[in-house]
């Protein structure tokens, strides 16, 4: 004979185990993506892809390639070559599915008078410059994006642990966990993070369908986003989009652990510096002057 109490108990456990099946674990209880098992990850990515297909009407591939072993990414930027043409900014927007109607740009190119240049002080610089032609006499241009710090201030302040540093050095954001408090934006000394104030709009034909879960998959309203060194490309061995877009070859990318890489050649042979080095955030983004 089943007592009333027992009946309710078994009923609830039965119902609970049904809804708690791995399928709904992510959607309802928001288990952290990196804590899911391989199978659960696959199922969640598949449902994410279906959701995107319903929303945008095209097939979007979301993968979650894990970090490569023996790779820590570093970036070099040759300031004596950069002409401030902003080709990288727009290549980045295209590659990383940034919002178009309320434009979000992960790269910001600062213009500063040569005599005012100081890697710790951008008081006299501006990023709204728009002359007929670049480069202009007497100015240098400093593109700034996420510096992928070794000791990232943004990670320290995140109350939900939605952002962290991966073993390959890339600071990533789990958009499902971001609550949009923007503490990280206040903490970042490089103004590298952007916030989706509205539902981001990207025309269907401009969507890049090759995406990564932590990278360029279409974002939603109320989450923070930033440069991930094109995680969807670099984890598959390719160069970031900005490197391939630069018309003067000022942007260099490579594996800091590989002594043959171009970034290591730069570190060995040029005087490199990092922005706001006194803050001890230890960026993996190195600036240098190859000429004079």
């Amino acid at each position: 004979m089943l007592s009333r109490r027992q009946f309710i108990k078994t009923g609830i456990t039965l119902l609970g185990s049904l809804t708690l099946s791995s399928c709904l674990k992510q959607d309802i209880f928001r288990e952290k993506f990196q804590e899911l098992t391989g199978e659960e990850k696959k199922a969640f990515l598949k449902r994410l892809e279906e959701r995107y297909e319903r929303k945008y009407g095209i097939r979007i591939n979301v993968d979650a390639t894990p970090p490569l072993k023996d790779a820590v990414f570093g970036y070099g930027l040759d300031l004596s070559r950069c002409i401030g043409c902003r080709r990288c900014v727009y290549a980045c927007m295209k590659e990383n599915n940034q919002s178009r109607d309320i434009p979000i740009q992960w790269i910001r190119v600062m213009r500063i008078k040569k005599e005012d240049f100081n890697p710790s002080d951008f008081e006299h610089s501006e990023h709204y410059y728009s002359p007929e032609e670049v480069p202009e006499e007497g100015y240098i241009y400093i593109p700034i994006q996420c510096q992928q710090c070794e000791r990232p201030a943004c990670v320290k302040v995140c109350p939900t642990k939605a952002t962290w540093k991966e073993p390959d050095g890339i600071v990533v954001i789990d958009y499902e966990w971001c609550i949009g408090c923007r503490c990280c934006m206040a903490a970042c000394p490089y103004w590298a993070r952007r916030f989706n104030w509205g539902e981001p709009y990207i025309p269907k034909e401009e969507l890049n369908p090759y995406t990564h879960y932590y990278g360029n998959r279409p974002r939603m309203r109320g989450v923070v986003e930033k440069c991930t060194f094109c995680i969807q490309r670099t984890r598959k061995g390719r160069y970031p989009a900005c490197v391939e877009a630069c018309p003067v070859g000022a942007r260099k990318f490579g594996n800091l652990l590989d002594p043959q890489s171009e970034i290591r050649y730069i570190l060995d042979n040029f005087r490199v510096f990092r922005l706001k080095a006194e803050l001890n955030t230890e960026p993996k983004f190195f600036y240098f002057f190859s000429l004079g």
Partner: protein
Amino acid sequence: MMIGLFLFFLLMFPSPLISDTVSNARIFSSPLFPCSSCHGVMKPVFSRRKLSFHEDITLNHDNLWCLDCHNASNRDRLNKTGGKIITFNELQSLCGICHGVIYTEWTQGVHGKRTGYWNGEKHYLLCTDCHNPHSPRFNPLRPEPPPLRPEKTLRR
């Protein structure tokens, strides 16, 4: 797994295993190539003068003159110092005679642009892909539009 194996090989045998590619010289796609189809029957003139053909070429490369780089007896080849003759696809070694430091940096991937794979096959751009060999300095570019000021980003 494959990538790990590849990285292992990369570290073991630094360069010979990588089959990097370099662009074809720009001249091969020119409708005027091969040069010898006209120049084969013409007698080379070594003096500096105003050209009656190739008037679209503005020579603004220090004090060089055509036959300093182009070979006089075989116009489909280039001159290198010491009487060596090279094809257009080896022109980086000719540029490297004067621009030695830049040539070294190019071989290391610091000067110029590489595309492809940071841990695998790379594609190098040849000097003439970016620089016009006859006037190598870059022309100024029109910049892409600046970011919107915050007050303009409000949705209507």
